[in-house]
């Protein structure tokens, strides 16, 4: 594989990340593994004793697990849309961050479905989904959607990696033989011949074209698991687009946070530049405005119409005695905060934007909780049950342990993956992506925008 000087430089810079694991990474990996072990114990309890160890009961049949499922799978859809759009539109500044988006897509489509499996009472009968499928169930649609999406996510990431694998293979790095062999296999004989380049590009274009609408479809299908029921707060025509936007929004937030972490950890400031944070920050601003609009539209319609059942949910969401505090947090931190941070020039800096994105991601997780639990706590008939755990959901420690185990798995995958591939794709880079080198004009587009902004 022949590399131009920029690509060579990017590779040389990131090469040590692949060659050594690093003390910090070992520490974090062990830390994540410990969480996963705790989660494993919780899982053992759940399997041995049944779902009784969770806080879920006959009214609130789904809890933290499904919240996590929506959350992670949302990140995945966002990664595919962001990666696909950046690829198709050939956005020059997007090249260094495409890999991160694609990694997020794959990792979260692995972690997310684990949580839906945790909701299922009978692990041992999962094959029934395939031997007795019933096409009219939104759950079946979701199974098909997630499986298809998973295949797409693997291919999408892999296609983008082939060229890089060829680089790693040819670089004669100081790595174990098995790793060298792995790169050789994964590079599937790519030598950079014209026909290989053409085929790869066509495949990538096709995949990007498939993945964007696929993400929208699967995010909508996920929303329909709730939207297709007759329950207040769920049975809403806005739910499909609402989930698509929510997924994209929270995914962009996680991407920004991931960029910030890798920038610190591997000192990738030359690739994940301030401009990236600013541009993605603008994206965040637009999406938060959109998400805020959807949220307002949803609540306002229910509240103004004030049908009895709908209103019961709205009252719970806005009453300080029930979920009022959380609703306030979800909307203040999840919608207003990113808008303010990005809109004010003084805070439009990588650190602030990442912090806002991080808080927003948590707020959006809370928002998913507010979508699921209050509705389930509001059945049409009065519950009239003296067992409090049947009336009000409160997550138990095994649920929290498994939640944190899921987050730990997510982070562990990121850690390990960054030891196999360069976080910044080497082969896609061009002159434009090197604002730090003095011998070119890469500063210009940014400078131009700045000038324009100043004029305006």
């Amino acid at each position, binding site marked *: 594989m022949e590399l131009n000087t920029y690509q060579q430089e990017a590779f040389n810079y990131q090469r040590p990340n692949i060659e050594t694991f690093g003390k910090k990474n070992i520490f974090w990996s062990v830390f994540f593994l410990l969480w996963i072990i705790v989660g494993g114990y919780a899982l053992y309890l759940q399997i041995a*004793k*049944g*779902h*009784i160890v969770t806080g*879920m*009961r*006959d*009214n609130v*049949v*789904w809890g933290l697990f499904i919240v996590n499922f929506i959350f992670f799978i949302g990140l995945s859809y966002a990664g595919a849309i962001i990666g696909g759009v950046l690829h198709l539109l050939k956005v020059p500044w997007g090249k260094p961050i495409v890999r991160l988006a694609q990694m997020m897509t794959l990792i979260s489509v692995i972690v997310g479905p684990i949580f839906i499996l945790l*909701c*299922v*009472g*009978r692990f041992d*009968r*999962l094959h*029934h*989904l395939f031997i*007795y*499928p*019933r096409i*009219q*169930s*939104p*759950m*079946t649609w979701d*199974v098909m959607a997630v499986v298809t999406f998973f295949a797409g996510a693997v291919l999408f990431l892999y296609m983008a990696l082939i060229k890089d694998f060829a680089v790693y293979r040819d670089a004669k790095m100081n790595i174990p033989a098995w790793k060298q062999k792995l790169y050789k296999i994964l590079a599937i004989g790519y030598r950079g011949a014209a026909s290989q380049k053409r085929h790869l590009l066509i495949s990538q274009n096709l995949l990007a074209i498939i993945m964007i609408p696929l993400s929208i479809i699967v995010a909508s299908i996920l929303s329909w*698991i*709730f939207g*297709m*029921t*007759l*329950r207040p707060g769920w049975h809403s025509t806005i739910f499909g687009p609402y989930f698509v936007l929510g997924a994209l929004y929270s995914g962009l937030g996680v991407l920004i946070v991931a960029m910030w972490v890798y920038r610190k950890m591997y000192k990738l400031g030359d690739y994940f530049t301030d401009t990236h944070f600013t541009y993605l920050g603008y994206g965040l601003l637009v999406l938060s405005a959109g998400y805020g609009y959807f949220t307002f539209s949803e609540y306002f319609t229910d509240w103004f119409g004030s049908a009895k059942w709908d209103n019961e949910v709205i009252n719970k969401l806005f009453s300080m005695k029930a979920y009022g505090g959380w609703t306030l947090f979800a909307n203040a931190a999840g919608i207003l905060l990113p808008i303010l941070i990005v809109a004010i020039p003084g805070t439009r800096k990588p650190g602030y934007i990442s912090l806002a994105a991080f808080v927003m991601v948590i707020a959006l997780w809370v928002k998913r909780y507010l979508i699921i639990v209050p509705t*389930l706590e509001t*059945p*049409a*008939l*009065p*519950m*009239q*049950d*003296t*067992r409090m755990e049947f009336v009000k959901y409160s997550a138990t420690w095994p649920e929290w342990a498994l939640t944190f185990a899921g987050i730990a798995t997510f982070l562990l995958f990121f850690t390990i993956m960054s030891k196999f591939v360069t976080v910044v794709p080497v082969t896609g880079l061009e002159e434009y992506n090197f604002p730090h080198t003095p011998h070119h004009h890469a500063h210009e587009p940014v400078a131009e925008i700045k000038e324009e902004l100043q004029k305006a």
Partner: protein
Amino acid sequence: MDEQSVKRKQSLITQTSAMKQDEAINDKSRREFLKTAALATAITAACGSLACSCSSKKEVIGKKVQLLSPDGEIVEIDSAYLNHHETMSVLAQHEQRIGIPGKKFVMVVDLARCKNARKCVSACQKHHYRPDDKEWLTVKLMQDSDKGAPYWFPKQCFHCDNPPCVKVCPVDATFKRQDGIVLIDNDRCIGCKFCMAACPYSTRVFNWDEPDMPVDIQHLEYNAETGVPAKVGTVEKCDFCPDRSREGLLPPCVEACPNGVFYFGDENEDTVTNGDETLSFTQLIKDRAGYRFLEELGTKPRVYYLPPKDRQFPVERGYDNLPDTLKARFKDVMEGVGKKS
């Protein structure tokens, strides 16, 4: 009970059992019939041996019974080793899914007669071997508006004609039969609980841990018509007791009610009975302004309610004598009444 209604009830019963026989003769080949019979005996024998191993104190009476073993041999065992279960009719799985031909089961609940005697609840639990805290049939205390008077509202599965639960089941574990009944196949249910989320009437209950079942029941083959045995990690609910209908009997809740609240019957025959009186279904609905709960959801329930007009009991009759744990359920509504009056 007047003569006519007795006759009508009897005809209902004989028709059901006649139907059952017809079915056995016409719908199945002889071979299949024998297979089922062999299975039935095998299971009964298995029950017998199980019961025997658990309670060895049983006295041998000396009365011998001939049984067909799974190998096709005729074996003779003492009748003391047999365990008798009224509800353990064994049906082929595909038959459980089809339903009783020609029937369209329907229920009418007369809210004017309910005083929360709770006999229906315990009869249901007994019939299905369910513990006290598992209520397939619950009695709610409803109050439609602030000024409205509270009334007792027994609620079981509505066996909707447009069932939201069946629509969402990903594996066809819950299904609608041609006799109108919605059942659950707990050998197939994966426990995703989507049906529970989809049911607007909170009808379904989940086995959050290993269900508490009598030992000899636990290991029987699952029968969707009885919901027995319960299985961990699966969903269950009221089944309209088609096993009883096959025998020409009424569901236990209907029989147990001291006030004749529940009328059960067949919409095709246009007949419903509460055990004491047998009436025309359409006439009853017409005369008493029968309605379906949350009709606006479009689920088309097969359970109709007669409004609580001219009630036979004051609402307190169902509250004052309750144990405290049950009282606590209805306290809010009852105390709300006190404040307003």
